């Protein structure tokens, strides 16, 4: 049983071995809040002969440091490489704990962070205050792209995708068949859409489904051994898109679109209502501009 860390005024991440040389550090399946210190994203520790690869860095300096200490503890080596899957602060701002030259991402993610990281940092300091102490902006320096790389003797297939944001990196650990999906895949936790393009996201999920894998680590939610998380994420996105369009077409305004019934098949998705209402904010005005007819006197 993998459990999220409790609030203890210090980050106390726990690592669960999920495949040979791969540990999952579970995030809380909640929105970012002071109570959880912003430690809501799943993090992967992948052992290599050069030292562990950390897939996502947490939300703050202290969080990144705690993850680094944990990676050292379970692998016996200091972190050799940090991969930032995408721009969102719960995954990216913990890069503050690492030397910039070992922090790598897709070029699109670095561009996203150059634009938004300062605003994210402000927002995180507002929500998390003391948890963010000392967190300075570290932009990823190394560029990653699609293709097979070998780090410390470990073959990792990098997948450069987009849809949850404009740069979403997933990776397949070839030896164990573990797909580390980042926020392209949510599991039993409703997907968040602040920078999403639903059509691109669906295409990315289609692509992930073609990647041979046995196990999947989602960006949020429990480890997926049953091959259900990709389909669940796709199902939610399809329903969300159709629901928002139907809401505009039937004359609802934003608050009403956020209160429509959520189908029972999504009952296992934590924070479904909350994420629906966020998604209304992200998408509704654009759908109105598309569907409501222009008028003149």
């Amino acid at each position, binding site marked *: 049983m993998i459990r999220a860390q409790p609030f203890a005024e210090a980050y106390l991440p726990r690592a669960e071995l999920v495949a040979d040389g791969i540990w999952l550090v579970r995030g809380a399946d909640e929105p970012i809040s002071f109570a959880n210190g912003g430690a809501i994203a799943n993090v992967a520790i992948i052992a290599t002969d050069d030292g562990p690869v950390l897939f996502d860095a947490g939300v703050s300096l202290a969080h990144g440091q705690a993850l680094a200490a944990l990676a050292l503890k379970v692998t016996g080596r200091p972190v050799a490489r940090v991969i930032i899957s995408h721009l969102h602060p719960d995954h990216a701002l913990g890069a503050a704990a690492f030397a910039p030259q070992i922090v790598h991402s897709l070029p699109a993610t670095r561009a996203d962070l150059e634009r938004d990281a300062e605003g994210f940092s402000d927002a995180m300091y507002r929500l998390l205050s003391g948890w963010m102490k000392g967190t300075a902006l570290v932009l990823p320096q190394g560029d990653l792209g699609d293709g097979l790389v070998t780090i410390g003797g470990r073959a990792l297939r990098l997948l450069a995708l987009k849809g949850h944001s404009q740069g979403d990196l997933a990776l397949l650990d070839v030896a164990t068949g573990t797909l580390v999906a980042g926020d392209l895949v949510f599991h039993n936790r409703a997907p968040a859409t602040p920078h999403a393009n639903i059509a691109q996201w669906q295409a990315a999920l289609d692509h992930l489904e073609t990647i041979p894998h046995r196990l999947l680590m989602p960006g949020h939610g429990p480890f997926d051994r049953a091959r259900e998380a990709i389909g669940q994420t796709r199902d939610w996105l399809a329903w969300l898109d159709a629901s928002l369009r139907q809401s505009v077409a039937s004359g609802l*305004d934003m608050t009403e679109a956020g209160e429509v019934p959520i189908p029972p098949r999504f009952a296992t998705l934590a924070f479904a209502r909350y994420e629906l209402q966020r998604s209304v904010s992200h998408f509704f005005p654009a759908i109105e501009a598309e569907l409501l007819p222009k008028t003149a006197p």
Partner: protein
Amino acid sequence: MTTRLAAMIACALPTAVLAGPAAASTFPADPLDSPMWEFHAQRLFGKAHIVFDQAVRVQIPVIAENQRVFPVTVDARNLPAVERIVIFADLNPIPVAIDYTTLSSAPFIATRIKLDQRTPVRAAVLTSDGVWHLAGQWIDAAGGGCSAPPVSRVKGDWADHLGEARAAAWNQDGGQTRLRMTFRHPMDTGLVENIAAYNIERLTIRDRGGIVLGQISVNGSVAEDPAFTVMVRNDGHPIAFEATDSAGLQFAGTATAGALRMASANP
């Protein structure tokens, strides 16, 4: 102007001065315990009778995901003889967002407002017996909803689309027509450096014969590219509306109830 002046006074004075010793006892205790309650009660309601009333439904999301565009729906159809609906946010620098004179329309309005910080968001509903019925709730919000420049100013295309109106109408049960209207407008608050206040000030809805069905007074704390949803009497004819902004420009449109054609929807 009075709104803005009051807001400036509100910003300039400490709360203790505003509350004052004399004013304290004349208003019912605020269930939201807002630091600005008595100031707003005095200014908006004067000596009128005030009740906090569950019959007024103020519908807002659980999270202010975007403090520049925060949706609020007010449904007072459980109250008889409603005359006005005022939406206000206690701690906004421009507290009152809209003041809707409902006339023959159903007491229902949905719009989007800006939030400049954590604040109560409320509706005050005036019934014909002179009583104000209030409801609302606190919402947490990041700063800057009123004091950061609008997206279209940053993007620079606001003037290219100024006043573009979209509208549609749907027949509802009970002889009502739901009318939705959106406008492209920067809705400048005047609180952003070097950008003067510039906003839609009035939205009037009329039937085919020109009879006014409802009128909304609109302030700069309504969100950029404002949207309004109202319910007017259904007489089977097109409904006309016109918005007037603070430069005197008018943006007009019409809508006829019917199924919305989805032809423009992308596959």
